[in-house]
């Protein structure tokens, strides 16, 4: 059982994540978008979206730090386990609660603003369920750790080695199996999230536009270069007829 969960599933997840992303990039560039809903509503979005995004980006940084940087390195730098732990829990819970508050506002907005709700696909709903579950479970591990004080489980001796071992193609199943239940569930939901990631609107995060800082303002392109990706297309997504009676039959991207 442990081998399936911590030895096989991670690779399935990775395969879906990488393969799915390549597939989507290859065949559905047109669907690769944030599908912004700011046109419909922006008052709540202006609070919720930055709160959520800034929170989640800090959470990502925290995860990268906690999972990838080995304990031996922080030890060598003279950062004690206590100090590290305190920092991780302190900043982690702030970022986590920002994220949760942000996504709560976003979901409230999605449900309550008519046009935004209309534009919410089944795919979005599934994604939200799993995303919220991952965030809540993550916060749960943090809360449990805070509650336990010094006796808290040190995931940097169980989860982190396992996480790194995945990439050495030699999964350290025992370490992971030794972690408490809340870490197990959070990790499992996380894996599900990454497995569906390429097939949801979350792909937008993979194309975060950092190159904007370095490119020239004005872009010239030759006609010939663009032949492969004409700017408009007939009988392709984006050319659905206008109407209301049939709107439920019109496929939206990802519905």
């Amino acid at each position, binding site marked *: 059982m442990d081998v399936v969960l911590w030895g096989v599933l991670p690779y399935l997840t990775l395969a879906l994540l990488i393969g799915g992303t390549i597939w989507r990039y290859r*065949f559905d560039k047109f669907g690769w978008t944030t599908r912004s809903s700011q046109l419909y509503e*922006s008052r709540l979005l202006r609070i919720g979206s*930055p709160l959520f995004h800034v929170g989640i980006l800090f959470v990502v940084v925290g995860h990268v730090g906690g999972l990838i940087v080995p304990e031996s390195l922080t030890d060598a730098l003279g950062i004690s386990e206590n100090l590290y732990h305190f920092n991780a829990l302190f900043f982690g819970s702030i970022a986590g609660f920002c994220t949760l508050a942000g996504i709560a506002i976003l979901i409230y907005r999605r449900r309550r603003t008519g046009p935004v709700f209309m534009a919410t696909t089944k795919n979005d709903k599934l994604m939200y369920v799993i995303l919220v579950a991952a965030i809540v479970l993550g916060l749960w591990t943090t809360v449990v750790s805070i509650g336990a004080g010094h006796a808290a489980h040190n995931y940097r001796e169980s989860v982190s080695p396992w996480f790194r071992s995945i990439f050495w193609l030699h999964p350290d199943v025992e370490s992971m199996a030794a972690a408490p239940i809340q870490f197990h569930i959070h990790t499992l939901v996380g894996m599900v999230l990454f497995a569906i990631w390429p097939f949801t609107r979350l792909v937008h995060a993979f194309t975060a536009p950092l190159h*904007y800082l370095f490119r020239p303002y*004005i872009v*010239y392109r030759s006609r010939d270069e663009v*032949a492969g990706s*004409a*700017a408009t297309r007939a009988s392709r997504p984006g050319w659905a007829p206008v109407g209301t009676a049939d709107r439920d039959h*019109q496929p939206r991207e990802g519905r």
Partner: protein
Amino acid sequence: MRVMAQMGMVMNLDKCIGCHTCSVTCKQAWTNRAGTEYVWFNNVETRPGQGYPRRYEDQEKWRGGWVRTRRGRLTLRGGNRFRKLLTIFASPVQPELEDYYEPWTYDYKALIEAPLGDDFPVARPKSLITGEDTKITWSANWDDDLGGASEMGHLDPIVEAVNAARGEANEKIRFEFEKTFMFYLPRICEHCLNPSCMASCPSGAIYKRAEDGIVLVDQDRCRGWRQCITGCPYKKIYFNHKSGKAEKCTFCYPRIEVGIPTVCSETCVGRLRYLGLFLYDVDKVTAAASVEDEKDLYEAQLDLLLDPNDPAVIRAAKEQGIPDDWLDAARRSPVYALAKVYKVALPLHPEYRTMPMVWYVPPLSPIVDLLAKQGHDAEDRDTLFGAIDALRIPVDYLAELFTAGDTEVVTRVLQRLAAMRAYMRDVTLDREPDAGIPASVGLTEESMRAMYRLMAIAKYEERYVIPTVSALDHQQKAHELEELACSLDYDEGPGMYGSAAFGEASGRPAPVAVETFQALRQRQTSGAETSSSSLRGRVNLLNWDGNGSPEGLFPEAHGGDE
């Protein structure tokens, strides 16, 4: 000097009757789709009026275009790159649907399916956004023909600017325009030389075509960060709320490529649109857009346009690979003539510093109409000149639109138009024409007659001088057959007319120019009704010539699941 070619347009506002044919045909061709219901690549606004979207010209609020920093550099009014990225999660300023309008349809079924009864059935308006009943409160041209101007005229940002310039309080100016001054302003994307939409796009999905300067959004690279909507001061980038991608006027590039005019131009009832080439010096664009005084921007923009008869320009253009056909078209270009030779066409809002390439001949007719109504001789040079001087408000208003408030330029243009009227009246009435009239506005008799021919007679071939891309391909020394192979040389090749591995929506699309090129050829050579086979059972309205009702024009009736 690095010479580039730019397709440009000039609209002669005197001739616009505000019929909206251009908007409707454009919509039929391009934005008759779910997600773009509120999108008008071409819209016609009544001036004075708020425009579409409402008050888009108020850049204090919408923060579009460029501003010049104290150090003389250009930066986006919406903020620099860092700021843009930091605020990307929710755009700080972006028009909402309210600022456009909530698109609607009517519940026509209620008319057809109502049971027999005493009451007339009513087709209620239904929102195209929510599908619910809705109340219609605004649209893309709600204030058409000054509708509501007495209550809302002061909301026009240009009226505000005129008032501010004259130091008058807002309530105080009686809405003089209402009786004396009204004209229509058709607007498309300006296909700017220094587009701020492009500069705002984090993905770099918006690009300017090196061959003809048309500005397009690469739908495969757009990620819906929606910064371009704020970036464009003309608000001519729209967000397709269904696909989550930005869309804009394409200058009908599939038509332009094969030498036919844009849909809006072709169908214009007033025949007031001109299409042709400009040659310009790319290396100087940024400097021209950065001149200190806003009022110098018009001149700076004119200076960018190169004389296609100048041997040095021709040599430089050839070095850049611009073919002879194109240079020839540039020499015959009506837009160059109106903008630079006769200097009667002006750019819309040069103060946004985007170097717009759709130019306007400001309207003289409101002044003529007024004179005629008051019983004056509206064809007389002196009367007209006197009126141009006396009617300050129209001139101020036009100056706020076209010259960043410089009334001298507008006055000069209106005087030229007035002089042409006065001079040509003598010619048509077989009287001895007064050579002093052209001279008084700095033209010779011949050039005045040539200008008259271009502006008043406005033959089809003189209005539209559009070089084709096949000339470009020839230039690349491509054999006729190779050329075809070349233009079909995209990822999967012509095989794409079939379905790709993952069904219709997968794989790469056929470039639309290839599609329309084939279809056009088929139509021209076969005489049969437009075939829809190449479009998988649908009709491309861009090619349909109104001949019969080709298969696929209407959707097939569906089976029971509806």
